[in-house]
């Protein structure tokens, strides 16, 4: 039996004005377990708290009920008071008789009656309270960043700057991501390489940062502060520590017909290659799918020309296991496939390209050395049609397009149109748009400049069909403002393809038990207030893996994710919330219902040996909750059919007792 003290606060006249506090204290005196009942002017004041502390000691109280304002206001205060008097802080319950009673009721009689009932409910609950102690877990002071694009780079640099070691895992042979493929960046038009490559060099030179390129995360175990991660370093057949990146091998390799993915297949590379001049790490990689030596054992040219002796045809995949305190997902995006949008003839003509391909065509390091030439015949295009929203905002065709707005297309199309007119004023540029969306600093001004200063033809309408006829692309479109169907003979058509999360994201989300939305973007812990954290503690989101973003937004989100990681890694120990779910293994029937509803992946199942009443042993599959991961929502407690799952602080019998107390009139 508990020994409960009840403390009724007047809150000046805030409570005492409509609730007869003396009557409340008196009425609650006779409730089961109550050994002491008092009222006071201001319980939260120092004098009020002292009164509680003294009563705890004097009456040897095992639990207290404070009838006062909302627990959202002073629950923490009274818990501290209790702790100071040697009482477990979770033995405190608050009856909210101000916000939910005195302030809303005018009549003293009904106010007092309700206050008594609320007090009784709190007493009924305290009777069933048990002391709770928050768990503690250590923090491994190292962060993992998955993805080496601008988001991952920025996050890693910021974390390293705070003094914590960071590992970047990147699937490609180099970091840099999509930004490395871009030509200029809106709205200021600085060249992407000029602002990105110094950051890549910073990453390479930072002692706190390790880069695992050509690698992927294959397994994640553990929880916040204590992740155990397995990284697969794919064999690149070149010793990274020996290769000097001189590039001789990439010039001598006889296999010249490998589609160059960095230029989106618009030209070829060799079987041994360095993706681009400023690659980090600047080491060669052998593409095992094309290398004659690896496929047939006959060639070996690269090994012969390599003076450093870095080539190793015998290399195998390596697996690295490492511990991390925090994981940042920065897996980025890709343009969607244009296969299902062949009304635009992407698969029927080389001169229909995506915007990312256009970037490469205008990039000085691209396949045309920066000259805007038609892929089909290398001629200079005189009429270019840009089509916006290809696959974005596409409700009808969930299987081919995306329902969301890809956000970046309006701006990069304005950039492409403007740069084309700037460099080649003899070119006619048409942009077909549904809406022009430019909410960003200096964004709308940028778009207007494309129209007003550069004379880009913006046409409200959509392209219906592109027909390759001879060396022209016949574009049939609507001009909704003029009320006309337009027929334009274009030389080049550029499609603003929707963007989607990288395909690796889904598998990663499963490994991390981080949730995703229907589009495979990672879900944030709160859409407004916790935008860079995943609901899974210790997992953070950086860049487009969370939703479409341009570079400025990506970088600011990357920094925000880093600051959250730093905040976590600064701690030596993590103190948990003790109000977490707990499974009674004897009652658990192993059905997995709880595991399925848990948004945090806090519940795991394992086989355990149990002694049966007849002294035999039996192996049963039972649930257990990781208190460091559980956030205490209680979804599992309701899903559990056997009643094994319960929530500390809000136990089934506690809530039932409150219901009973309220209903016993």
């Amino acid at each position, binding site marked *: 039996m508990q020994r409960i003290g009840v403390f009724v606060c007047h809150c000046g006249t805030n409570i005492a004005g409509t609730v007869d506090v003396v009557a409340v204290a008196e009425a609650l005196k006779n409730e089961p377990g109550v050994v002491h009942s008092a009222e006071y002017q201001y319980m939260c004041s120092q004098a009020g708290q002292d009164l509680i502390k003294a009563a705890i000691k004097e009456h040897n109280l095992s639990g207290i009920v404070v009838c006062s304002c909302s627990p959202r206001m002073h629950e923490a205060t009274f818990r501290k008071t209790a702790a100071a008097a040697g009482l477990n802080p979770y033995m405190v319950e608050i009856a909210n008789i101000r916000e939910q009673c005195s302030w809303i009721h005018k009549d003293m009689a009904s106010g007092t009656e309700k206050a008594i009932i609320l007090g009784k409910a709190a007493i009924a609950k305290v009777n069933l309270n048990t002391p709770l102690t928050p768990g503690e877990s250590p923090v491994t002071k190292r962060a993992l960043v998955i993805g080496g694009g601008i988001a991952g780079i920025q996050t890693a640099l910021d974390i390293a700057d705070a003094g914590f070691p960071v590992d970047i895992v990147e699937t490609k042979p180099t970091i840099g991501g999509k930004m490395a493929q871009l030509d200029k960046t809106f709205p200021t038009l600085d060249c992407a390489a000029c602002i990105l490559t110094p950051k890549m060099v910073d990453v390479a030179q930072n002692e706190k940062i390790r880069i695992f390129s050509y690698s992927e995360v294959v397994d994640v175990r553990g929880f916040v502060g204590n992740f155990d991660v397995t990284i697969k370093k794919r064999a690149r057949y070149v010793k990274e520590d020996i290769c000097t990146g001189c590039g001789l091998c990439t010039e001598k390799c006889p296999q010249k017909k490998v589609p160059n993915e960095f230029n989106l297949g618009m030209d070829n590379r060799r079987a041994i290659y360095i993706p681009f001049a400023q690659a980090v790490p600047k080491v060669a990689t052998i593409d095992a799918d094309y290398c004659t030596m690896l496929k047939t054992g006959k060639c070996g040219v690269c090994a012969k020309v390599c003076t450093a002796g870095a080539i190793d045809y015998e290399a195998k995949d390596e697996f690295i296991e490492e511990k991390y305190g925090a994981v940042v997902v920065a897996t980025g995006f890709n343009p969607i496939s244009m296969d299902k949008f062949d009304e635009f003839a992407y698969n029927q003509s080389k001169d229909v390209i995506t915007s990312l391909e256009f970037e490469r065509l205008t990039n000085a390091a691209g396949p045309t050395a920066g000259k805007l030439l038609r892929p089909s015949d290398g001629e200079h295009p005189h009429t270019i049609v840009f089509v916006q929203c290809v696959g974005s905002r596409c*409700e009808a065709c969930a299987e081919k397009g995306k329902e969301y707005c890809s956000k970046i297309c309006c701006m990069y199309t304005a950039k492409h149109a403007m740069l084309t007119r700037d460099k080649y004023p003899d070119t006619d540029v048409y942009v077909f748009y549904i809406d022009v969306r430019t909410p960003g600093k200096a964004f709308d001004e940028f778009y207007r400049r494309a129209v007003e200063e550069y004379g880009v033809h913006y046409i409200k309408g959509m392209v219906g*069909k592109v027909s390759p006829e001879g060396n022209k692309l016949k574009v049939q479109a609507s001009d*909704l403002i003029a009320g006309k169907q337009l027929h334009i003979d274009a030389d080049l058509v550029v499609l603003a393809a929707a963007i989607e999360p990288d395909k690796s994201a889904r598998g990663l989300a499963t490994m991390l038990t981080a949730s995703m939305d229907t589009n495979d973007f990672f879900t944030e812990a709160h859409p407004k207030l916790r935008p860079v954290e995943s609901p899974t503690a210790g997992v953070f989101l950086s860049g487009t893996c969370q939703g479409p973003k341009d570079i400025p937004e990506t970088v600011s989100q990357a920094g925000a994710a880093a600051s959250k990681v730093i905040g976590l890694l600064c701690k030596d120990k993590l103190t948990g919330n003790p109000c977490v779910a707990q499974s009674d293994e004897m009652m658990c029937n192993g059905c997995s219902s709880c595991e399925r509803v848990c948004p945090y992946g806090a519940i795991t199942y394992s086989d355990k040996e149990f002694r049966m009443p007849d002294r035999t042993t039996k192996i049963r599959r039972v649930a257990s909750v990781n208190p460091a991961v559980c956030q205490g929502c209680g979804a599992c407690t309701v899903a559990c059919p056997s009643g094994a799952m319960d929530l500390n602080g809000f136990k089934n019998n506690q809530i039932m007792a409150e219901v009973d107390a309220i209903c016993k009139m």
Partner: protein
Amino acid sequence: MENKNERRREEILRISGVNPRKCMKCGKCSATCPSYDEMEYHPHEFVYMVESGELAPLLESKSIYKCLTCFACVERCPRGVEPAKLIEAVRLTVIREKGANHLKADDIPAKLDEEIPQQLLMSAFRKYSK
């Protein structure tokens, strides 16, 4: 009058199964339409005018007989609006009225030639008469 218009509008939405509110006004249907030049009101305008209840001009327009039901607009609409079904429903509300058949059996002989496939006559009857 108001009521009759509203009833017709509801009838059009019901028999077509089209929800014109899904339209995001991109104009891809009209960009795609092979009969665009023959039409006074174009597929996107059908969607807009049915949604806003502006039926009278549509019901009187020859445009309702110009749609080929080729379904290019339905195929390419990014929002799944299906303008061709809506145009068909507008046409049906006209020709289902008594004596409003657009194509009458008596007119046929004059239009026949040696090679005309039965399929053409059947289709035209279905589309232009009740």
